[in-house]
């Protein structure tokens, strides 16, 4: 009998802080103009700002934001997305105080409301023999 716990690994490295008791989105900020980007970039994405690597710093966003809009996805999207076992789920865009709006799955699908407060967490998409693959998710806190 296999009782060994599987490793919990992020689906894509460096998009959210993991492992962590308090997962946060990893973004980048331009020291010159303040533009925040997610996923983090090597160069500032502000079209009128200079393209110099040294201007960019990696930051962790606040762990709370506001739900800007959302939907509940009722059918299974095609690959490359995997969510197993599939069940309907919420998706939403969240506004962070750092001035950026980010997409993510929502940990529940009922009682969602535009403007509600959510916090960043991590949740399982699928697993194989060795690993559970995690992505960032929004957990309503209102």
């Amino acid at each position, binding site marked *: 009998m296999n009782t060994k716990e599987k490793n919990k690994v992020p*689906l*894509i490295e460096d*998009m959210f802080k993991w492992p962590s008791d308090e997962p946060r989105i990893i973004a980048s900020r331009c020291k010159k103009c303040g533009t925040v980007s*997610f*996923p983090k970039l090597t160069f500032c994405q502000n079209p009128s700002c200079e393209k110099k690597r040294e201007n960019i710093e990696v930051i962790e966003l606040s762990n709370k934001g506001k739900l*800007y*809009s*959302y*939907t*509940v*996805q*009722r*059918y299974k*999207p*095609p*690959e*490359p*997305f995997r*969510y197993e076992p599939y069940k309907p*789920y919420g*998706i*939403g*865009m969240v506004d962070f105080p750092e001035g*950026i*709006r*980010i*997409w*993510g*799955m929502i940990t529940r699908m009922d009682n969602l409301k*535009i*403007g509600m407060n959510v916090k960043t967490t991590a949740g399982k*998409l699928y697993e194989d023999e060795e690993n559970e693959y995690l*992505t*960032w*998710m929004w957990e309503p806190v209102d």
Partner: protein
Amino acid sequence: MPDKDVAVIGVGQSAFVRGYPGGIRELCFEAYREAMQDAGIPSKEIKALIVCCAPEYDKQRSPSSLIDEYLGLTPAPAFMVESLCSSSTTGFAIAYSFIKSGLYDVVCVLGFQKMSEITSQDVQERMGRGADVMWESPYGTSMPAYYAMYAQAHFANFGTKPDDLALVRVKASTYGQLNEKAVYRKKVTFEQVMESGLVSSPLKVMDCCANADGSSCVILASADRAKEFSKKPVWVMGVGQSNAPMNLASREHMRGLECARIAGEKAYAMAGVGPHDIDVAEVHDCFTIAEILAYEALGFAKPGEGPQLIRDKETYLEGKIPVNVDGGLLSKGHPIGATGGSQLRTIVMQLRGEAGAIQAPNAEIGLVHNIGGVGIYGNVIILGR
């Protein structure tokens, strides 16, 4: 009176179907033949061919060369343009400027899509990839989900309800049943829409248009050539185009599509007309909510008041601004690259008074609103007779 520099002299469209049995050459020929018969000109008059499609749905590489040869148009130059679901109105804008500049005097804009070349799973995946795949794959989204977010935002801002969306589908089916070229010709009741299953809340199965295979063709000509060939030229009055950020999260708001609003403003300014001058319109109703957003973007209704227009049936044939009286994408189906050309064909027939059972009374000025992706590309074309 419109500027009489560039005219549409021929329009054609294949039937929009599920699983067209031939290849893309045969599919394109169907629309081309109809448009050329309509224009009454021989193929040697075509000086350039603009092929419009979203190429990732096809196995064929560089389809414009294949089609140029098959239609017997070589040595006329051919090339392909792509702006997702608005490809053929983008092609139309290029054809307009070719003729206006004097480079060519007769240009063929041929839009097509054969989505059944690949599995429907693949179609969905490619549609999803009309958005930025690099970082949207970790949370699983879809075309309906993107438009659903616009719907939720409209609901929250303006009190719009699922019932309003259903009314749009009922209207589409009212006219779709009359359109011999539509993929979906059944009349749909309000109850049927409301009882159809949720896809991405609040959008239900019947709030979504269907994929289809199809082609469309529009022939444009200079004023001199138009007068030579055509008894009923339809003149290009306004062309407006705009893009919004591909990533929805980078847009300032989700109350409507900015690319459509700006494209509309540009087209109105060029044509020297306003929303009240439009007698009949074709808008990009890939989802029911998209038609309501279009009413507002084009100024047929104030922001937030789009739902009232459909509640009052003002966009029916008898209303103040008939919209999508050919059934729209919701009934006709949506063969990506062919959709804009099909919309243009409907408006041209309306302005010629050749629309039959769906003829809008005294239509002098018509408008086409064609959107690529989820509000990425906006094209608005105004035509007049």
